[in-house]
């Protein structure tokens, strides 16, 4: 097995956070279509705080990065996505064994724990047109993927995007879009988009 990974996981998390911050406008546009138009603003606030927490962190323990970043995000984003993504990262960080560079399988297990915490917190399930529809197939792909972290993350990102694309055909049943019913059809879910962009940037930096 040849390691393709080019950067540390912490650097990857930092790059992924910056990518979401940079996508502020496109995320906001997505939320205008079916929500209240603030998703990009909240995620930019949250992932900026995530990146700042990483910068303050001593060392590069992945579990600590996810926990500190998730907490910072939760306490600065606000809104639904702040609670959801904050819960996801915090719970994933708590579940991850110590170490700077996680194994793909361990990371997948930790993310699965994070996603379960999201389900417990928000009571949404697959098909409800939320970030879960990107995260669930993405984490499954990571779990089933190669042993090489960078390659595995690339597979994860690809699965996230097709999960996000599938949200276009879903009628929202949770969050602000649920009132729209059929009017939410045709638009991707903003939170699924954030999760996808995050995965893609993480994979790109690590690969």
């Amino acid at each position, binding site marked *: 097995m040849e390691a393709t990974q080019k950067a540390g996981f912490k650097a990857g998390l930092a790059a992924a956070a910056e990518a979401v911050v940079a996508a502020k406008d496109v995320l906001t546009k997505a939320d205008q279509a079916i929500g209240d138009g603030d998703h990009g603003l909240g995620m930019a606030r949250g992932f900026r705080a995530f990146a700042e927490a990483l910068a303050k962190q001593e060392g590069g323990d992945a579990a600590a990065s996810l926990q500190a970043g998730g907490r910072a995000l939760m306490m600065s984003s606000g809104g639904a996505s702040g609670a959801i993504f904050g819960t996801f990262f915090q719970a994933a960080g708590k579940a991850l064994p110590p170490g700077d560079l996680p194994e793909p399988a361990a990371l997948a297990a930790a993310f699965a724990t994070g996603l379960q915490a999201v389900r417990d917190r928000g009571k949404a399930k697959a098909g409800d047109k939320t970030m879960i529809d990107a995260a669930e197939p993405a984490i499954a792909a990571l779990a089933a993927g190669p042993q090489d972290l960078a390659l595995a993350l690339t597979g994860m990102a690809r699965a996230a995007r097709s999960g996000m694309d599938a949200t276009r055909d879903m009628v929202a049943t949770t*969050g*602000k879009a649920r009132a729209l019913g059929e009017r939410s059809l045709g638009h991707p879910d903003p939170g699924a988009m954030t999760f996808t962009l995050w995965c893609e940037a993480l994979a790109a930096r690590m690969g």
Partner: protein
Amino acid sequence: MVIKKAINDPENLVREIAEGVVFAAHGRVRLLEDLPVLVRTAIEPGKVGIVVGGGSGHEPMYQGLIGPGYADAVACGNMFAAPTPDVILAATHAADQGKGVLYLQANYAGDNMNYEIAAELAADDGIVTRTVRTGEDVSMAPELGRRGLAGSFFTLKLAGAICGTGADLDQAADLAQRVADNLRSLSVAFSPGSLPDTGEKTFEIAEDEIEVGMGVHGEKGVATLKMAKADPLTDLMIDKLAGDYPLAAGDRVALLVNDMGATTLMELYVVTRRAHQRLAEKGITVVDTWIGPYCTTQEMAGFSLTLLRLDAEMEALLARPAANESFLRP
């Protein structure tokens, strides 16, 4: 895009709003140093604390609704974004007088989750909380979990009133839940608001159309109507509200005619008149009426109607005096 609003750097907006409230309250409200939390300076000892707060941009809800008979502390979120758990937790500590804290929030995923996390953290700190959510938007099917609109004003007003009588947390929460269960609201918009951070409209409305059933964040409505005169529009809304319970002849209600931002009071008076007439036709008595901006969506032109079906206890509580510290001052 030129953002035509009297604001400074949007980064500081939430804090500057809160500072304005503090100045306007002349010593009766303070602002925490590190977090955007407004707190009454003289909360009655032994009183159940009331914490409210959601996304900003809906003023006077909630920043203006603090005072004796209203909230004890307000957790201020960013524009249209539920406050974070640490902000709610700080408000909880500030409001707590040892008798527990009542959270009153509108049913939105963001608010639900952030309040839930805050409640868990408060429990860790030994503070008992109970949460009551308003969700009275009749434009949504009940099984979807209706979102909360301006009716949250009544939940707060009546919870504030009962807490002023020395009620304990469970009594207050039970009453607030009864209020929430007896609320119905519906909103219409003529023109959209815009986000102060970006200047972007929250949605588009055709020149000759009305959007029906929007949320308070500028979410699109569930349907559009052709522009109509005030009377048929009001009839349609009242019928939908009354039919939703359904109300029966002899029922007694409170009425809130809420300006969502740019609708003139002139229009609200015209609508109020028709709402009273239509309810009277159904044999329903309007016990009392509130008119004005209570929950806004920036400069959206539109209004919402809220009915609260009253029982004897609610009706008595509704008449208790209360005072907002920076708004609705006679």
